[in-house]
C-alpha cells in the first residue's frame, strides 16, 4: 500500500518539509512505496538555484533529485500552486509530474500524511 506524503509549507521557515523528505526516503529505503506531493507554498521546494547556505541550511535539491534512486514512486506538484509561485519547466527541478487536483491525487492513496 502506497503512502502519499504531502508538503504544503514553504522551505527553510521550518523543519517540516525536511522531515517530510526524510520520512519519504526512509519509507522508500525500507521498500515501503511512497510518493511526494507538493502543494500550496510547498511547491517552492522545487525551484532550481536555491542557495539556503545563506540562511545556514542545506539545499533539498540534491535529495529530491535522488528520490527516484531511493525508490520514491513519484514526485508530484499541484499545477495551480506552481503557476501561483511562478514555477514552470524552466525553473523547476526535473522529474516532477504536475497534477491538476490535489484532492483527486489524495483520493488515489489509502495512506496520506501531511508534513508537520
Amino acid at each position, binding site marked *: 500500500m*502506497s503512502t502519499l506524503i504531502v508538503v*504544503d509549507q514553504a522551505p527553510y521557515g521550518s523543519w517540516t518539509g525536511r522531515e517530510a523528505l526524510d520520512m519519504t526516503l526512509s519509507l522508500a529505503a525500507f521498500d515501503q512505496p511512497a510518493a511526494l506531493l507538493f502543494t500550496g507554498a510547498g511547491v517552492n521546494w522545487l525551484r532550481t538555484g536555491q542557495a539556503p547556505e545563506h540562511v545556514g541550511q542545506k539545499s533539498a535539491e540534491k535529495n529530491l533529485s535522488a528520490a527516484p534512486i531511493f525508490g520514491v514512486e*513519484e514526485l508530484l506538484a499541484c499545477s495551480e500552486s506552481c503557476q501561483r509561485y511562478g514555477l514552470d519547466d524552466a525553473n523547476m527541478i526535473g522529474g516532477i509530474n504536475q497534477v491538476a487536483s490535489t484532492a483527486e491525487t489524495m*483520493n488515489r*492513496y*489509502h*495512506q*496520506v*500524511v*501531511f508534513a508537520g
Partner: protein
Amino acid sequence: MNEQHEHTPTLHILNKAPKHPRFAACLGTLGAEDVLVLSENAVLGLADQQSRLPDGCLALEADLAARGLNESFQKQAISYADLVKLTEQHSRIISW
C-alpha cells in the same frame, strides 16, 4: 499507484488548531461516511464557537484533559486504544 477510491470511508486524524489552514481543509474534505478524530490542538475546535464540526466528531481524551475540556466533551472523548481500533477499521487514513 493505487486506483481511485473516492467513496472509501476515511478516518481523518486532525491535530491542527482551528486557525490553521489545514483545519478548514480537513473539514472541507469530509465525506458523509468519514470519521473525524481531533488530537492535540485540534481538540480546541470543540470549544471554539466559530468551528462547525460534524456530528459524531471524536477527540482524544488525553488531549481534552490536558486542556481542561474533558468534562465538557465526554461524549466525544475516545482513548488511545479506541483510536487504534479506528485505524484497524479504516483502510484509508489521512493524517492532517
